[in-house]
């Protein structure tokens, strides 16, 4: 018996997200009195793999097959399912991100293992196995029972912190057998920006809405994000009007984010927008309309014109940083 956690790497490095997943898996392992096995797919140095031990993994299985350096859903599902069987995993943990959403449902069908996607907490009980998740984009929660012997969870971002729990992780290399059938899709071209903080990773997000008046007024949004080491985002109408790229759109049909602080400048706060940001720890709203719905969800609000409040805030943050 074991809890198997799939830990993704980005250019050979794990992220905080990977360690949060191991911490979460360790939490479940403690409830079930078993141990955590971490699975890494890709080219990751031993020293990096060892870090999984800091959060409680007692074993790390490393799969390094050059055909798996790109995400191929079928092949990943095949590898993960095989390792789960080999390790007699009763619970599998994935991130609720692009990779987790692409692979965990396949593993669920392969292993006939019930899936709860976007879990927000440790299981409230393991017999029966009940875990809570957001539904209606955070407007309600559901406690879901998984009835199958093997269980799969994808963990919502930023819903579980890091918990150090040092164990000496044993590293084991594993070479799965894969067939051409597992590689029916392939990447023919890759377009990625590098060096920018990803919106879904950012601890601080600075976002603008139609109240910003136009794309030519976006410089202070970027400046504030830069000062705070955060990412920029926007509301749906801003993306739809082409002021900002679609990948910056946060909201129910865009990206769902959960940073430490979400700054909303000139965003009225339609219910669909709030669905994408309501899991943020702190929401700061600046809007000239005192009745804007965003203030009902914000922790801190300023009624005022973004054109004067934002530059003032930037100046004060600069002073604060200089101290």
């Amino acid at each position, binding site marked *: 018996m074991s809890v198997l956690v799939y830990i993704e790497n980005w250019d050979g490095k794990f992220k905080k997200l990977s360690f949060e997943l191991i911490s979460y898996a360790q939490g479940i392992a403690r409830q079930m009195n078993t141990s955590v096995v971490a699975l890494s797919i890709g080219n990751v140095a031993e020293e990096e793999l060892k870090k999984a031990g800091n959060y409680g993994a007692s074993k790390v299985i490393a799969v390094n097959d050059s055909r798996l350096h*790109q995400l191929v*859903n*079928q092949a990943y599902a095949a590898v993960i399912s095989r390792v789960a069987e080999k390790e007699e995993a009763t619970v599998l943990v994935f991130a*609720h991100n692009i990779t987790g*959403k*692409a*692979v965990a*449902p*396949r593993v*669920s*069908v392969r292993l006939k*293992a*019930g*899936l709860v*996607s*976007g879990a927000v907490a440790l299981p409230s009980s393991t017999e029966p196995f009940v875990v809570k*998740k957001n*539904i*209606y*984009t955070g*407007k*309600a*929660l*559901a*406690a*879901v*029972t*998984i009835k*199958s012997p093997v269980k799969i969870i*994808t963990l919502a971002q930023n819903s579980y912190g890091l918990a150090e729990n040092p164990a000496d992780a044993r590293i084991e290399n594993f070479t799965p057998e894969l067939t051409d059938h597992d590689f*029916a*899709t*392939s*990447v*023919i*071209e890759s*377009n*990625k*920006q590098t060096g920018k903080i990803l919106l879904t990773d950012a601890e*601080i997000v600075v976002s603008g809405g139609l109240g910003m008046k136009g794309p030519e007024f976006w410089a202070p949004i970027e400046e504030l994000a830069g000062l705070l080491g955060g990412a920029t985002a926007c509301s749906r109408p801003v993306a739809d009007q082409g002021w900002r790229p*679609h990948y910056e759109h946060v909201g129910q*049909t*865009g990206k769902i984010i959960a940073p*430490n*602080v979400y700054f909303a400048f000139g965003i009225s706060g339609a219910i669909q927008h709030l669905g994408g940001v309501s899991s943020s720890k702190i929401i*700061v*709203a600046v809007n000239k309309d005192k009745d804007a719905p965003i*203030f009902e*969800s914000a*922790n*801190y*609000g*300023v009624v005022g*014109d973004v054109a*004067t*409040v934002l530059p*003032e*805030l930037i100046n004060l*943050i600069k002073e*604060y940083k200089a101290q």
Partner: protein
Amino acid sequence: MKILICLSNVPDTTTKIRLTADQQAVDVAGVQWIINPWDELALSRAIELKEKNPAVVEKITVIHVGSKESEPTIRKAFAMGADDGIRINAVAKDAYFVAGEIAEVIKSQAYDIILCGIESSDTNGCAMGTMLAEFLDLPSVSSVSSLDVEGGNISLNREVDGGYEKIQTSLPFVAIVQKGIALEPKIATVRGIMAARTKPLQVFEPAGIDALTEVAAYELPEAKAKCKMIDAENIGQLIDLLHNEAKVI
């Protein structure tokens, strides 16, 4: 080329969610039902592709798992431009159930492209389409943000962290689509609405796939504390609160 779109019907995204008194269900009395926004975008893109490439795209079929009460959702898809539809006569239990039931019905039918929205706005599962691909043993491409079929050649992009990748795939395949696949939902025309009444809709009884999960109870999130208002003339107080009270900067 035949395209299949899986449709879920969900409460309008502006719905205020209430629970029944025993917290065993979401209270859907008075709820306006719509096509799940991502499925609607998938359907809109399929219709655009058919209009642009009539020689390539022969037919657009929609499939839905639901009771007779959800048929207006399928008729709405017809009005938008789908050619025919299938309803599996069962109440959706979980993603595994829905994917398994759809797979049972369509495994003998030859669709080239199966489109599914990345999630449904009610259960936020992000699972059904990928599960369907696995049930059918087909390739799946996830987070698809653009799809074209010009000249019969498939061209598709999937979103990845910080950008996108162009993907090649064998046919048939399942595309899990997200925002960007179509810019705007297709609006039904009066002619479309008239035609929708007579388009063929087949009904299948469920095959009896077992759900693997069930909801034990629902709850509403805790009410948020009242917003602290800061005077626009005193922005320094905001920084003080973020630093000393919230401890986030």
